[in-house]
């Protein structure tokens, strides 16, 4: 029993380190038309200190922005999301931009990003996957 008290949290802590690797800022452009917008969004996200590991994916008609928030800033998660959303609405009024800080959305985006980099996805497949992620994000309730 006593041994477990020390080993268990240690195991969990070390396991946590292996899980959440750093990604850094990443961009994925499925359709070339949005390239400039993605760069603008990426620059903006780079400037905000609360965020790290951002992934921006541009599909045919939608742009998905997912990010991770620094630990102490997680108290202001809703505020940060609102801020980014407002900024994108003002910057691109006629473009649908989905913003999410959810870990699942980030994970799926990262998977899509990696398989896109590998070159194992066609444009249609990537678009389909992006649509799936956005549906997942929207039925959070």
């Amino acid at each position: 029993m006593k041994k477990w008290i020390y080993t268990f949290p240690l195991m969990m802590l070390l396991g946590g380190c292996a899980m959440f690797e750093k990604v850094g800022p990443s961009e994925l452009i499925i359709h070339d038309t949005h390239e400039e917008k993605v760069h603008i969004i990426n620059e903006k996200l780079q400037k905000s200190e609360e965020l790290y590991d951002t992934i921006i994916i541009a599909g045919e008609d939608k742009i998905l922005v997912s990010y991770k928030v620094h630990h102490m800033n997680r108290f202001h998660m809703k505020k940060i999301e609102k801020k980014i959303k407002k900024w994108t609405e003002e910057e691109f009024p006629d473009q649908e931009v989905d913003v999410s800080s959810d870990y699942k959305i980030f994970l799926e985006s990262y998977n899509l990003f990696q398989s896109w980099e590998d070159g194992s996805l066609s444009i249609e497949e990537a678009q389909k996957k992006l649509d799936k992620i956005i549906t997942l994000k929207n039925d959070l309730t």
Partner: protein
Amino acid sequence: MAKQTASEKSYQSLVNAHDRKRPVLINCIKAFLVGGCICIIGQAVTVFYITFFSFTEQTAGNPSVATMIFFAMFLTGFGVYDRLGQFAGAGSAVPVTGFGNAVISAAIEHKTEGFVLGVGGNMFKLAGSVIIFGVFAAFVLATIKTLLSYFGVVN
């Protein structure tokens, strides 16, 4: 407190002299550590659901809670959770696993009285009040929120 008579006072001082002091700080630390460990397991279960199933951070809460209660029920049946409870006190009772423990330990305790009047009737002896007050509190909060958003105070 009511006024004590002389004999009550002398008895109280006698009790105080022989009573063992409660190690409050140590108990708190134990409860903190064990409760924290239970929460680490809960977080691991949540991450498991997020990674391998199509749950998002917000929806993964429900299946994780159910799984944690299930684990606690199993451990209670095997007699592990009781020992943990003796060691950690509130640290094992306050997290949602304490709910599973309360259900199953009551069921085991009243098994000898038969399935209907014993197990069925007493299973929710303690857990029943958790459910009742939980549902009632949720109802009151939802009513307040609905009224506030109806009158436009919050959105």
